[in-house]
């Protein structure tokens, strides 16, 4: 929390606007693209479009700083502006300062910097980023100054890793913001970023810069750096390395506490730090490993980024109506702006809803399709809350498993969206190793819930009453298409639900047949027939479990996926409606403008000059508003088109995945059934 929140304030305003712009262009690889620039500053400018794949890998390395929401925007800026000139500057700096001292200096500032924006990123990115980011000319100068100031504290941090970490954090807070601003007020964002990279880079970056004159080389070097480091690096460098590495490792855990830098965090942070530090020290390799995928990414494509979130261990916490379910959220990723590759946190159900709410608030208006969170089910939860935790009756464990699965799908859907997964709230959600503040707005019965209900009713009325004359044929077709899709999916879902229900029925009636066949066999006097019946009973009993598993497969693969899509279609509709609302404001602005112009004309006719002036102002004001809302409308239309394109692609892919998985499940159950009867037949024949 702290990380993302603190830094964001600094940059947020600017960042958001920039993000939007970036996103439009770079939709899929918004995050990556900036990074790419870093890698090949000079070329990047030219390559930007094509360069994405290449650049993307570097982004991974550079990204790490991103963890905090604020960082990312900074990176963008830094990349774009400084990158061209910056590159050259970096090498210059490094040679000048030399190996040891400079590195230390640089490293320290990052540590300081780290506190606020991105602790982890620094570590990760340090390899690559220092060079890249250092590229920013301004930053270079600024950083040096900063570094000098900061060096002392940072050194402590590096050496004393465990104990110092706290101090470092503190120092960072103190030093960071003021220093940065003071040193380079204009650049502040950039400089801070620069510092971070430079810090990381101290050891490694210097090497890289030395080795690589060519940008391309730099990528390779990165991978090599890790390996080369140990042997090649000078003793000083090594010293530096050790501290930075642990720092980086430490930082991630720190990051969570950092965010609430104020008071309580530091104490919590320390415990985390110590355990983390130990692993970090023995494994200097880890950073290398992190760097490597990024290098590979460079060569391959941004598509290689993967993030996989799994939800496990649902746990009931507390008793009675105040109890809640907590889930373990485990993330595996190779995306560099996450601090680790594999970690887990604990979240409760309302946290997921809260996350969704935040994402909607932030991204809906810019035309993004936000995957809907699973629905809150008052009945299901109450049952669980009231049921004793020991008695795992099947309906509630079913419910929990269902919810767990849908949460997992929800998280992965969100994570699959490049913009959403880099959202500070999302990252905080999956990364912050502490409890999130309660999301209070989620309860269906709370006042907020009622308010939401009213809002929804209002929206629905609006949707029904306002008929916008569609100027864009694409949207007209798409809206129609979405409506059809919705109806079809609902139909399909109903059929699937029926299928699941009857499959369950088949399973239960098979079980009861197995039982009665067993009874029959016990009654049967003819021994051969009795044994045959007994075999039959056993075989059907086995098919019963298979049918049951099949019913589950039907449910999880077919029915739930389809249901998800019904909800996703809902999200799509929301986005479309958001566009309609934008259109409405634009229309409103236009009518207002017309009115104001009329008023102005009247005033002119009447010859009342004082009023003319006032009317003139108003006209100008509304003209600006019209222009702005039109821009907004165009922007959201463009964004939606991009989103829909992506949505369709993902949908087809999901559809294929679903079919493959489902067919495979069907095949497994058929194979199992075959096995059952294959063992049955010879036995039955042997009897008769």
């Amino acid at each position, binding site marked *: 929390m702290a990380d993302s929140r603190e830094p964001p304030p600094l940059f947020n305003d600017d960042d958001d606007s920039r993000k939007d712009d970036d996103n439009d262009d770079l939709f899929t690889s918004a995050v990556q693209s900036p990074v790419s620039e870093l890698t090949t500053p000079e070329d990047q400018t030219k390559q930007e479009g094509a360069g994405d794949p290449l650049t993307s890998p570097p982004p991974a390395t550079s990204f790490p700083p991103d963890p905090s929401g604020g960082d990312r925007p900074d990176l963008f800026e830094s990349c774009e502006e400084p990158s061209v000139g910056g590159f050259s500057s970096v090498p210059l700096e490094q040679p000048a300062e030399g190996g040891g001292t400079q590195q230390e200096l640089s490293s320290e500032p990052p540590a300081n910097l780290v506190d606020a924006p991105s602790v982890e990123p620094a570590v990760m990115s340090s390899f690559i980023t220092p060079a890249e980011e250092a590229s920013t000319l301004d930053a270079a100068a600024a950083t040096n100054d900063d570094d000098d100031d900061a060096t002392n504290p940072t050194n402590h941090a590096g050496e004393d890793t465990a104990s110092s970490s706290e101090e470092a954090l503190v120092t960072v807070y103190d030093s960071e913001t003021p220093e940065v601003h003071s040193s380079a007020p204009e650049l502040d964002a950039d400089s801070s970023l620069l510092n971070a990279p430079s810090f990381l880079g101290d050891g490694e970056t210097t090497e890289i810069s030395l080795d690589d004159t060519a940008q391309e080389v730099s990528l390779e070097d990165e991978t090599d750096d890790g390996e080369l480091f140990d042997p090649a690096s000078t003793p000083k460098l090594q010293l530096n390395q050790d501290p930075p590495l642990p720092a980086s490792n430490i930082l991630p855990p720190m990051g969570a506490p950092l965010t609430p830098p104020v008071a309580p965090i530091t104490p919590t942070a320390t415990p985390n730090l110590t355990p983390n530090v130990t692993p970090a020290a023995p494994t200097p390799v880890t950073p290398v490993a992190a760097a490597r995928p990024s290098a590979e990414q460079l060569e391959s494509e941004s598509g290689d980024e993967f993030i996989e979130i799994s939800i496990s261990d649902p746990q009931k916490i507390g008793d009675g109506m105040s109890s809640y379910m907590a889930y373990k959220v485990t993330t595996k990723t190779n995306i560099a702006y996450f601090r680790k590759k594999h970690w887990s946190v604990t979240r409760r159900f309302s946290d997921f809803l809260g996350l969704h709410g935040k994402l909607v608030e932030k991204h809906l208006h810019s035309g993004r399709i936000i995957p809907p969170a699973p629905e809150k089910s008052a009945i299901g939860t109450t049952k669980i809350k009231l049921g004793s935790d020991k008695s795992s009756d099947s309906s509630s464990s079913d419910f929990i498993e269902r919810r767990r699965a849908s949460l997992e799908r929800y998280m992965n859907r969100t994570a699959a969206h490049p913009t959403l997964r880099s959202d500070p709230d999302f990252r905080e959600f999956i990364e912050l190793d502490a409890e999130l503040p309660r999301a209070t707005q989620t309860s269906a019965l709370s006042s907020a819930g009622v308010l939401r209900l009213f809002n929804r009713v209002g929206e629905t009325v609006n949707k029904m009453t306002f008929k916008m004359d569609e100027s864009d044929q694409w949207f007209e077709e798409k809206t129609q298409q979405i409506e059809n899709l919705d109806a079809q999916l609902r139909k399909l879902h109903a059929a699937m639900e029926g299928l699941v229900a009857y499959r369950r029925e088949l399973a239960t009636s098979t079980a009861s047949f197995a039982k009665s066949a067993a009874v029959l066999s016990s009654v049967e006097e003819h021994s051969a027939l009795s044994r045959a019946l007994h075999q039959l009973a056993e075989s059907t009993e086995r098919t019963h479990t298979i049918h049951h598993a099949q019913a589950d497969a039907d449910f999880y693969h077919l029915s739930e996926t389809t249901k998800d899509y019904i909800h996703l279609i809902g999200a799509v509709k929301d986005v479309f409606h958001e566009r309609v609302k934008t259109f409405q404001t634009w229309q409103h602005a236009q009518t207002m403008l017309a009115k104001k112009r009329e008023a102005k004309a009247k005033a002119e006719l009447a010859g009342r000059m004082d009023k003319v002036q006032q009317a003139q102002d108003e006209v100008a004001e509304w003209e600006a508003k019209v222009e702005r809302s039109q821009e907004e409308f165009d922007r959201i239309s463009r964004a939606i088109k991009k989103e829909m394109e992506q949505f*369709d692609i993902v949908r087809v892919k999901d559809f294929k995945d679903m079919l493959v998985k489902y067919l495979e499940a069907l095949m497994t159950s058929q194979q199992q059934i075959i096995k059952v009867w294959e063992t049955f037949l010879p036995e039955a024949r042997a009897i*008769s």
Partner: protein
Amino acid sequence: MLEEGSVSGMSSGASTPEPEAPFTPKFVVRLSDHVTKDGDCVKFTLQVSQNGHTVQVLEREYEDFEYLEHCVTTSQPSHGLIIPPMPQRSAIDPYNAEIQSKRLMGKGSKTLIPDEFHKDCLQLQKYLELLLSHPVLGKSQKLHDFLTVKEAPPRTKVKKGLISRLSDSLDARKASYPDCEEFFQKERDWVAKYQPAAANANDAFSKIICAQLRISHQLEQMVTALKLSSLPNDQVHYMQFNNMNMIFLDCIDTLKSQTEEKADKEDLMFGAVQTLWHRYVQAENAMLLDRTCLMVDYQACNRALDKAKPNRKEAAERAKKEAEQAFEECSDAARQEIKEFQRKRVEELQRSIDQYAAYQLTCSRATLNTLTQALSQIKAINL
């Protein structure tokens, strides 16, 4: 008669025809699939052959079978005989068909199960086979007339009167009398245990069939829904989607017909056989009850003889002799019948279990095959 009462109105299952060992049936009857339905009147076509030559082709209605059963069982003394159960009449009018469909497919279902005459044919054929292969009943002149005379014999509606029902219920109370012979006592105990167990198994099995029918129905719904969800072919990934959709749709469609066929066949080869023999056991029970009644009569006569005054002694003696003879005859016949019945029962049930298992295998293999094809086709589509 007692047997008639308890047996008529019961239905039977069907199974593949099979030759009978000791007694060679005089005719072989095959009900062809040609069935004409005219309102409530359903006519089955019988092909009667003797020694491999077709002797007669004739049309019979269900009512004719009912009347035949009545005649066969009443025209001769049937003590100690296990009368093959008559198949139940299937619902042919829309009202009953609807009730039947709702029972099978669930209350909310709107599907109406179409007439399934092939099942009726098989069951009636099986019934005639059982009659013909019965050592006593198979010789009945009425049965031979039924199969050789072109015109169906004029029939009267067979109705069970109040009196016969009353006597049935009185007789039923005698079922608890202990038997004087261990063989029959054991058989009676077994029947008493077996009947509920078999009834349960039948119910459970028919539920499996139901569930499968419902599944196939849902699969059909899925197919219709999938058919509607094709997208315009104007983009590459839309086309891919449509392709996958088509493959999946075909696959589901095949699965649907496979499930349907499987349910149908399973019902015929296992469910119907189970039901038939369950009914047959009921018939056996009726026979045993009849015998018990004779036994009770005989015992009563014995007691009457002991107590009889000298002037009545002769009449009592005569009555006792008659009762004894009837009882002895019945017991002898019943012993034969039961042995034959059990042999046949075990044989047919075992075969049906065997067939059932083998059929499960074939079905699953076919399904697996369909799935494998669909999966490989879908996997071949590169996104």
